């Protein structure tokens, strides 16, 4: 069960990384913006919120209510943060990837700057 719990889908990994990068400013629209800049195309908010729910369900992210804020006409919002186990999951994925990549870099095409 533990092994499975550590496994993390690619998209969820990206969402986690974006949230980690944003630090204290990890609101859903910001996460979306970071991912869209990286992917270069519009991403589905449905997929994003579903991924956030899944990450929350597995204890990798948590959120706190913020607001009511004036710029959202009194609406409240959720500030996401990556939990310690979320960081562990990211670290584990990274280790797996690096281990798999070890000694394989020469097979990659040259990347331009």
């Amino acid at each position, binding site marked *: 069960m533990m092994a499975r719990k550590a496994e993390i889908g690619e998209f969820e990994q990206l969402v986690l990384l974006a949230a980690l990068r944003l630090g204290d400013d990890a609101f*859903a629209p910001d996460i979306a913006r970071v991912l869209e800049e990286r992917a270069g195309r519009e991403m589905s908010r449905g997929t994003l919120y579903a991924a956030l729910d899944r990450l*929350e369900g597995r204890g990798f992210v948590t959120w706190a209510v913020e607001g009511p804020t004036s710029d959202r006409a009194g609406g409240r919002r959720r500030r996401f943060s990556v939990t310690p186990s979320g960081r562990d999951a990211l670290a584990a994925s990274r280790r797996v990837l690096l281990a798999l990549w070890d000694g394989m870099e020469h097979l990659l095409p040259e990347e331009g700057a």
Partner: protein
Amino acid sequence: VSPVHGALPPRLARTALELFLPRGIRGEAILGDLDEEFQGICRDRTRAEAGAWYRRQALRVIVGYRLLGLLDPSRRGVGGAESGGALQSGYATVLDDARFALRRFAKAPAFTAVAVITIAIGIGANTAVFSVVDAVMLRPLPYPNADRIVQVWQTNPDYRAERSLPYDDFSFNALDYVEYERETRVFDEMGFALRYADEGFGTLDLGDGPPESVGAWGVSSSFFDVLGMPPVLGRAFTAEETAPQGEMRWTPVVILSHDLWMRRFEGDPGVVGREIRFESAPATVVGVLPEGFQFPVLSFMGAVAAPDVDIFVPLYYQALYQPQQPGRFRQFLVTARLREGVSVEEADSDLARVAASLAVAHPETHTGWRPIAKPLREIAGRGFETQLLALMAAVGFVLLIACANVANLLLAQGATRRSEMAVRSAIGGGRRHLVQLLLTESILLASTGGALGVALGQWGTRTLVRLVPADMPGGGDAGLNASVLLFAVGLTLLTGVVFGLLPALRGSMLNLVSDLRGGRGEAGARGEWRLSRVLLAAQVAITVILLVGGGVLGKSFLGLNSQPLGYDPENVLVASLVQGAHHPLRVINPADSAQRQALWQRKYDLLERLSAIPGVVSVAEGHPPLKPRGGYFPVQFTEEGEDRAERDLTELLRHDGHSHRAWRRAPAQGRRERLEALLVGHGLQRSDPPVLQGTGERNVRRTGLAG
């Protein structure tokens, strides 16, 4: 940051989001996020772009987040928390509910079986009828520019009234056709068709077995161009083949349907140029029609027909051109393609202009005739829409009864499940979830019934197709396809909600104290009883409507075949011989009396032998034989024969002394004389008497004998 003002997100999309998103902070925050992003996009891009973005994302959130989320067990428990991480139990997914429901059904097999079969019957009946409705009324016509293709016929109220004809759509004769084709300005192309040898059948002899009787029609050279479906192999007929000037000659060339080509020639592309024997004479195949070509639904003599035609022959219409009787012999079914941008009304007024000039030229024959153009689409379901829709309504009622029955079963079940519901509610199952659970159950029931219903419907469709009149256009093509399946699925879901909602709402109304105790609250029991009674009353009411409607419907739909015929079909048999060398398009030269005598002599001989059969009271020869619906000649006969049009027909039937006795017009009062006769169809070739079928058939029965 400036507060929200000015630009508001698209209202419909936002309302949908509000409806679908979960209550509480989770939904509120997502709604707020999307508003905020919308504002941001408004600042960078146009309002329209921002609106489109919002609609797109709203749809993705509703479908991808909310609806798919209900099926995702890994997101279970993520629901109403006011802060992250605190998972709540009791918010089961639809999948869990479905699993639970299946277990419950397995434990109550009798209930499940009754409910599933009830629903299956309801949905099966609806699917079957919808298949026919789809084939007859909804399926698009296969021709390019189908909306511009019209059939042209003419009406004449006086002519109709004088002869008390039951229809008002007359065809054209050769002379008229030539006039209209030359004078009208509204059509790209005009063409016509005529049943081959009146019957619409001819014999095909490939020498590899017994000759086959196939659907055959004569057409003008332009016919396939009008429909926009020229042959895929070979060519269409040429103008010379269809209208040779001056001489009485039929060019022996044929065009095959794709179906016949595949069936009898194994799709051999070398078939073009091959000589076959059609009607005991050699004919050359010049073309093969594309797959999916359908003979257009045409209307004539008050009936519509879309015959299966396998062989087309060039219609040699100069032979039918009878200048001495320009007003008669109206047999040409005219089809035309409107010019781009020309409306049906404009076509009608142009046709009226030509009709007026014809009436001036031939006042005695052409006064009072008004040609009209009808789009093929309108003809297609003509005369059948009412019956089909009535039948659809009837099976709809059957489904309603089925729903009421299952709802009642569920209600009764609900009474025994109050404790279960109370326990669920006590451990935190909100009413919304109880309703969700009960609705999942009913939709699952409906789906099982629906699947079985589609199978039943398949069988029902086949039965129904046998019952529908043979000339119901497209009726024979009814069957399972994507739109029928979609209809069945939609109907199934709707059914599940219709019969499940009431018991679900009822079942989720709990009185915790008494229900937990295992007793049934007084109020609850009373409510169920009342609901049950209302359902029962509704069922009885619908049943009565159905019974009354069913009687009327059965008479009108299934009885289409037994419309008043103008004669009494009791004890009348029709035997039809498919003959070789004789057919009116190329045979008897009316001027050649020796030829006629020889033909008639052969008929007399056969009629004599037939009348010698014990039990045969009277024998007559008819050309054409009787038709239940439609045909080229009105099936009405007068003893007096005063009327010109009818006198000619009566003459045809009077070659032997018997026919006069055999044919009697039904008296106007509706009382009919009993006829006992054996009628033999047009031209005969074989000397053996035809095999006779049983007597007393409901309808005139034709016995086709190839030979």
